[in-house]
């Protein structure tokens, strides 16, 4: 196991916000070319972990290696290795769909011919080519989501982070999107690290799964291993047996308290 190259390696990662521990001493590895799902209830620490892995946030403690570099010390070389589709909006509403794509393409130094070809291909793929010259502010939530995905796939990175990429998409678009991602994963050996609330998505697509709750990883392994471990028949049952519904309520309350404190501070 250890001999296979880990493209993501996380050891004892902790992130505290004042007295609130969002990520609590987690460790996991993702192999090169693997599709890895990171599951957990709301507020479990998924997005915080992704932010740390993608250089947006410094951890309180722990050791992380992404494609051979540390996202704390050597942010720039880590940034060269990944692409990301964020959970929340990250488009420029005052630019058109095409301009958002173009901006991304230039920022990621995609050669002009490939850039133009891929932009057209991806905008057609998410069915926004006809609307390419419309301002993003006129788009519906679903359209924005599709554009975010198209933009995230524009440069083919070594690692693709997807934070709940298919949230709010219809089943057709979800299926298309995953087919497209799986295709790049196969053709270019691109590693995929994603979070989702759709258990059947993780079941079907992920080769390995980690489940996080209260900032701690409560289980990790293949879909089969998780089901065997919890003596359940589906990933959803395994997930519920590991995280439970009562615990999740408590978790939400802590987050709410933290949000209230934040509001008071500002």
């Amino acid at each position, binding site marked *: 196991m250890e001999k296979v190259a880990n493209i993501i390696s996380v050891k004892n990662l902790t992130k505290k916000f004042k007295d609130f521990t969002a990520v609590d001493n987690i460790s996991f590895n993702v192999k090169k070319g693997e599709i890895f799902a990171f599951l957990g209830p709301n507020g479990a620490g998924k997005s915080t972990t992704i932010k740390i892995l993608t*250089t947006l946030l410094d951890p309180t403690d722990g050791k992380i290696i992404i494609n051979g570099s540390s996202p704390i010390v050597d942010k720039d070389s880590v*940034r060269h290795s990944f692409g990301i589709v964020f959970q929340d*909006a*990250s488009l*420029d*509403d005052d*630019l058109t769909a095409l301009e958002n794509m*173009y901006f991304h393409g230039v*920022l*990621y130094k995609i050669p002009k011919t490939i850039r133009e070809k891929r932009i057209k291909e991806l905008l057609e793929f998410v069915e926004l080519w006809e609307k390419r010259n419309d301002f993003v502010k006129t788009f519906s939530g679903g359209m924005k989501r599709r554009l975010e995905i198209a933009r995230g796939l524009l440069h083919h990175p070594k690692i693709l982070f997807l934070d709940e990429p298919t949230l709010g998409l219809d089943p057709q678009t979800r299926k298309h999107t995953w087919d497209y991602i799986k295709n790049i994963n196969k053709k270019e050996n691109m590693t995929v690290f994603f979070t989702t609330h759709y258990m059947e998505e993780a079941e079907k697509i992920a080769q390995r799964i980690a489940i996080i709750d209260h900032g701690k990883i409560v289980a990790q392994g293949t879909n089969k291993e998780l089901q065997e471990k919890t003596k359940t028949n589906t990933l959803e049952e395994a997930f519920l047996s590991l995280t439970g519904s009562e615990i999740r309520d408590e978790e939400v309350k802590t987050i709410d308290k933290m949000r209230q404190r934040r509001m008071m501070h500002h």
Partner: protein
Amino acid sequence: MNTIYILWLRQVKKYFRSKSRIIGSLGQPLLFLVAFGFGFGSIYQKAGQGNYIQFLAPGVILMSVLFTAMFSGIDIIWDRQFGFLKETLVAPVSRMEIILGKTLGGATVAVFQGIIVFLLTLVVGFRPQHIMAIFPAFIFTFLVAILFTSLGTAIASTLEDMQGFQLIMNFLIMPIVFLSGAFFPLSNLPKPIEFITKINPLTYGIDGLRGALIGVSNFGLTTDLLILSVVTLALLGIGSYLFSKIQI
């Protein structure tokens, strides 16, 4: 190079698309020109200082440049709130390139605003000493634009939302404008006020622009140019440092 260009392009496109912003931001300088220019004109003349509009115009031009530049820098806060900042932050490009592109874009927009206000001052009776004065005037305007876009960027990098903005407006931007010699001559001021005007970088921009446009300067154009350049470079450095420290 492309990174700088694309960030520049974004600022410029967004500015020219917001026609109401352009027109709206002309109201204030126009009001200053009319109210101050005509209101204080006769007193100024009686005090033996000559034509007030001639004195006031460079100040109003740079006031307008400063506002546009600061707002361009500060719009990082909007990018943060609307999420777009993340897209720039995770990009594999140096923070210096991002800051340079954004700053040059903001400065371009601010200079353009300055040119419109310059045309307005011509309408109310301002006359530059010579047509060639436009070139040194352009250099001073551009430096002031870069300086205050960098300042806006630096400040915005440390703010999470627009809440602190009012504070900056009242305790930084307005004092910079009013204590810079934009509206009154800097001679015979009380010591504390004189000190503030001397450490205010806008003072040197206005002095330089006045020197270029009407041939009246306190410190000399070389001094003005030197001080503006040094402060601008320092703020660009501080701005990119603070920007690189942003955590989301």
